[in-house]
């Protein structure tokens, strides 16, 4: 092509590229717009109280935070999610068999959270629990840990 055609083509290409980029960036912006930057819900990272507040043996169920706090004499603290991995119902823990039972579709999780029975696709999450500077226990639901994780206090 001659020079004229070349420039026509180039400007056209640049124009179209610009349009596509504009559209693409706008779409990305829309998707980012729809993602919330703050959450109007209980935080993922929170303190649950003094170690002494928690009994040994049967876990303490915290309603708002939907977690079970286990305290073992020898090994220390562990925090399990109380949200069934199947469809989000709240599981119950029974001391008689040390297992988690979900009322919605009958999923049963063993003491370490692994799926024993029912349609749940994966084990219950265990969350990281640490001790804050003031001595209180801090749970971080964004940090999933293996079921063997314990916090010795």
């Amino acid at each position, binding site marked *: 092509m001659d020079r004229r055609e070349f420039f026509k083509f180039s400007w056209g290409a640049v124009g179209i590229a610009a349009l596509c980029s504009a559209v693409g960036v706008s779409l990305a912006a829309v998707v980012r717009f729809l993602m919330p930057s703050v959450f109007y819900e209980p935080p993922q990272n929170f303190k649950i109280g003094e*170690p*002494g*507040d928690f*009994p*040994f*043996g*049967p876990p303490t169920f915290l309603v708002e935070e939907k977690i079970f706090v286990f305290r073992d*004499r020898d090994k220390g603290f562990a925090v399990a999610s109380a949200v069934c991995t199947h469809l989000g119902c709240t599981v119950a823990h029974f*001391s*008689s068999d040390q297992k988690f039972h979900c009322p919605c579709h009958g999923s049963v999780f063993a003491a370490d959270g692994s799926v024993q029975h029912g349609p749940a696709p994966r084990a219950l999450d265990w969350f990281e629990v640490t001790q804050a500077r003031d001595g209180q226990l801090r749970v971080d639901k964004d940090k999933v840990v293996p079921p063997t994780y314990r916090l010795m206090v």
Partner: protein
Amino acid sequence: MERRLQQLFFALSLFALVLILAAGWQANTPSWKTYQRSFLQIEAQGEPNAVTKAAVLATPPEIHQVLLSGLQRVDRCTTCHLGVEDPTMKNAPEPFRYHAGLGPHVPSRFGCTICHGGQGLATDKEGAHGNVAFWPNPLLSRDYIRASCGRCHKEGEVPGVPELNEGRHLFETQGCRGCHKLDGVGGSIGPDLTGEGANRRSPDWLERHFLAPNAVSTGSAMPNFHFTKEQARDLTYYMLSLTNEEMGSYFSSVRLIPSPEYGRQLFVEKDCLACHAVGGAGAKTAPDLLGVTKRHSIEWLDEQLVNPELVYPGSSMPEYDLEANARKALVAYMATATPEDVQLVLSRKTRTMTPEDVAIEAGKQDFARFGCVGCHGTELQGGVANPNAQGGEVPSLLHVSDDYTKDEVIAIIRNGRVPPMDNAAGPAPPLYMPAWKHVLSDEDINRIADYLWSKQEKNKDAW
């Protein structure tokens, strides 16, 4: 065919008209309008002449609603209960009867459901009385309505509702906090009771639970406290009042009712008789208080209680940190105090207490208030069942000095203790000794230890 279709179209249109009229009729004839009409008939009967009678009967029907943002509710009960604030309706049939004895708690300022329960949003009888599916707060039966007083009046006495104070007193002295948290203080063995009155609206369940916990909550670790029926009722009243609801500032400001009875309680608590007398009975250091409300204005007396130095420079009367309603109560008591009553107060004071006695008494108070008595007993006898713990029950503390030094006991109170298990393979015992070092100060813990040591029984058969 086409004609048939046209006819069908017109027939259906007619049917649609009938249906919309039926819907309109259904919407226009709710049951509350019938009630309002009956009420207007009654009202009209009291009118002197035909003109006013007609005017009354012509009143258009409308839904009456009380908007209570301070109580976070909307009550429409007065749509049918039209005579509640009208004294002339004393003998009217229900639902129009006048509600006597309300005092300041008139429906236009308080609504109805805050005391009675029910569903204020509803405008038909069954719905409004809350006896419908999916409304967890039905009308309280007559016997329990007064428990609702405790939802606002959270401190001190409520005149006419001794059950609330009794219930609170039982809660504090029987050791409930040892296992149950209330307003953030207490143990974690049982459920948090802070909002129990909001979750559990069945007085029947609560009473049966207090009389026999395991019959109602199977497998519960809560021991049977062998409450009497009256005690169970008192505790039920107290539980029903624990609704943990947010209230506007006006409603929270009346937590305490400034009654003369409460004033008397403060008079004794603050030991005014240490310096003052009433009609000669009492100490002589400060002015005699008999008839003081006739000599000084209420504002002056109130100021005296807030800032004695301001009124009498150089006065040795301490500044008591009393809130407004507490001061009002004291002044109210001052108006009614008699020398005979004061003598009664004086006669109850036994020997003067030494600092050691004070420490032991404080320890005893704390031992009850923080719930230790719930497991260890009001007489330190122990005995509450604790399956799979060594000994099978909570130990008695009457011989604790045989096995531990005072410092060891203080350490146990501070750090808590898990009871050794009988059968290591079995389930963990439900009851344990919690750690108190973050709840009680060292001073409090020492006093509790002093109290325990004052109660030790010397074992006659000690080895």
